[in-house]
């Protein structure tokens, strides 16, 4: 299932939900806040989402992954609000019979989540500027591909 949260993501608890005696593989992905983007020092990231459609699109992505790959369970959690360096912004977990489909489905879900869900992030830079990632007209005309 897809979830949007504001509290820190508890990966261990989420992974436990995917446990299945038929699963020979679990693949998990965590997206972390890093301290640099396109040469600019980043202090923190601010995530915003339009939650109703982030949830429905996220559920669609997971359902697609389940149709494409033989999965036992798949889940994604994305966090919004102000996140500091090193924090986890998004988690994807997949359990499956075997590793091939687990890896592939995990990759599919995060790749689709990143291009389809109505979620945006604003970088706050060390120099005091800030800018919305992937936008032509963020601060200083800076275009990022995070």
């Amino acid at each position, binding site marked *: 299932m897809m979830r949007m949260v504001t509290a820190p993501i508890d990966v261990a608890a989420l992974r436990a939900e995917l446990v299945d005696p038929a699963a020979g593989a679990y693949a998990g992905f965590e997206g972390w806040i890093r301290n640099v983007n396109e040469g600019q020092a980043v202090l923190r990231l601010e*995530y*915003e989402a339009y939650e109703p459609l982030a949830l429905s699109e996220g559920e669609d992505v997971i359902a697609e992954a389940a149709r494409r790959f033989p999965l036992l369970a798949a889940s994604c959690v*994305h966090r919004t609000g102000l996140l500091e360096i090193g924090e986890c912004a998004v988690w994807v977990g997949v359990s499956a019979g075997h590793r091939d489909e687990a890896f592939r489905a995990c990759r599919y879900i995060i790749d689709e989540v*990143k*291009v389809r869900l109505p979620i945006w992030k604003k970088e706050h830079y060390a120099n005091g500027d800030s800018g919305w990632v*992937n936008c032509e007209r963020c601060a200083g005309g800076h275009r990022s591909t*995070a």
Partner: protein
Amino acid sequence: MSGSPITVTVRYFALFREHAGCDTETVTTTATTAAELFAELGDRHGSLEPASHCKVAINDAMTGWDAELGDGDTILLFPPVAGG
């Protein structure tokens, strides 16, 4: 191509909210498609993002830029997404 004026609610997010100076506004427009409305509002609020990089939803359903607008619709304008 313009039609008779309709009144719609537009919701802005992220960068678009900053450009518009508000998160919601009621707009009376002769635009007939989401693309036409987007161009009209881009001119008004000084936004340079091309529609091809942006997304649109009407009445809480994702749709395309060629979608036709109806009186009373709520149009959600999404700047380039950057989740994850």
